[in-house]
């Protein structure tokens, strides 16, 4: 039996599928957040040099990883939309941007809160911090460009180019601590393993997976809104029970 892979790439069918999938990601995300933060704040041991202040790592590192990954996924969807002209891909890219910007902001903010007591400065213009700030600006630029063009197809094309070109920045963020002298320390989790204590690892990875699940849930919810917005004039949207109910309530 041949599976029609493109069936769910149509907004019409994906709308329903996304709605059914959301709880399967949202609930595990909430549970894992609680578990990870509990381990991070109550089980993981005190750190030798930074004592309790290091615990912000359980938020800072997952947020930073996600801010970079989401950008690549967003650029990937934008490229798919540009190459295959699939409407849903562009909508997914648009749906991912605000969450990516949120994580980039959390990463910078928690980093500043961590930097002041440990390094002695809220902010330094080192390569890691500066390139992450550029990432936040790329997200904001993408959102602004998408919003500034009325015609969604032209908006998709223009913002897709920005997203694709901006993806060059992501490897720069990752390797910045290797290529240049920075105040930011190097990678703790390496290909060769990690020196991190096991309870610290557990907390960090639990929050990381929780963040992933949160991203999926919130992106699906947002893409549903975008589908409704863009297809508002179509028959299938007006036939949806929730739309009928809302319209009926107004009349």
């Amino acid at each position: 039996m041949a599976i029609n892979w493109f069936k769910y790439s149509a907004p019409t069918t994906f709308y329903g599928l996304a709605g059914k999938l959301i709880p399967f990601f949202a609930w595990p995300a909430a549970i894992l957040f609680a578990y990870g933060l509990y381990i991070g704040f109550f089980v993981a041991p005190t750190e030798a040099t930074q004592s309790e202040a290091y615990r912000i790592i359980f938020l800072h590192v997952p947020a930073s990883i996600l801010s970079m990954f989401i950008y690549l996924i967003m650029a990937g969807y934008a490229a798919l939309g540009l190459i295959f002209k699939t409407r849903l891909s562009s909508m997914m890219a648009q749906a991912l941007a605000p969450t990516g910007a949120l994580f980039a902001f959390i990463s910078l903010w928690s980093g500043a809160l961590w930097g002041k007591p440990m390094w002695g400065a809220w902010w330094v213009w080192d390569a890691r911090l500066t390139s992450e700030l550029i990432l936040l600006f790329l997200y904001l630029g993408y959102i602004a460009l998408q919003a500034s063009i009325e015609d969604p197809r032209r908006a998709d094309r223009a913002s897709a180019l920005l997203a694709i070109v901006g993806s060059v920045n992501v490897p720069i963020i990752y390797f910045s601590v290797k290529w240049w002298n920075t105040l930011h320390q190097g990678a703790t989790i390496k290909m060769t393993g990690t020196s991190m204590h096991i309870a610290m690892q557990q907390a960090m990875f639990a929050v990381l997976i929780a963040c992933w699940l949160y991203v999926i849930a919130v992106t699906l919810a947002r893409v549903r809104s975008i589908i409704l917005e863009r297809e508002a004039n179509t028959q299938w949207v007006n036939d949806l029970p929730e739309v009928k109910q809302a319209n009926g309530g107004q009349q």
Partner: protein
Amino acid sequence: MTARQKRLAFIVGGVMLVAAAVGLVLYALKNNVSLYFTPTQVYNKEAPQGRSFRIGGLVEVGSLQREKDGLTAHFNITDNDKTMAVVYKGILPDLFKEGKGVVAQGKLEADNVFHADEVLAKHDENYMPPEAVDALKKAEAAKAAKPEAPASGSSAEYPVAK
């Protein structure tokens, strides 16, 4: 080529061109992108002369001396090759410690001492409980006690960027 393949080639080619351009720019600005110079670079006169710059490395063990006013500190920054004397008047960050990473901003004066007006602590990427650090130190002390053991840098030390 179909229109689809053309668009794909356009995007892949475009990203590669942009990456190459950005790579060249960053390579040309190498010294400006780096936050600090190492003492070796300062000795080789790679650091700017007569104006403010940052120097980074480890605080040399046994070099920290405080003046009677309680604020002025003298210490050496080393990259395990060259060493640079630093003087700083102000409050040092909590993580400032002998043998640990540090980045200082200031000017190299005629007395060949780096007069810093900002000192930042640089911590490493290892996060362990105090017991693990104690265990590491004990293992190292046991290793050092054996004469045949090869001399090696302390693993708790910050690895200096080349």
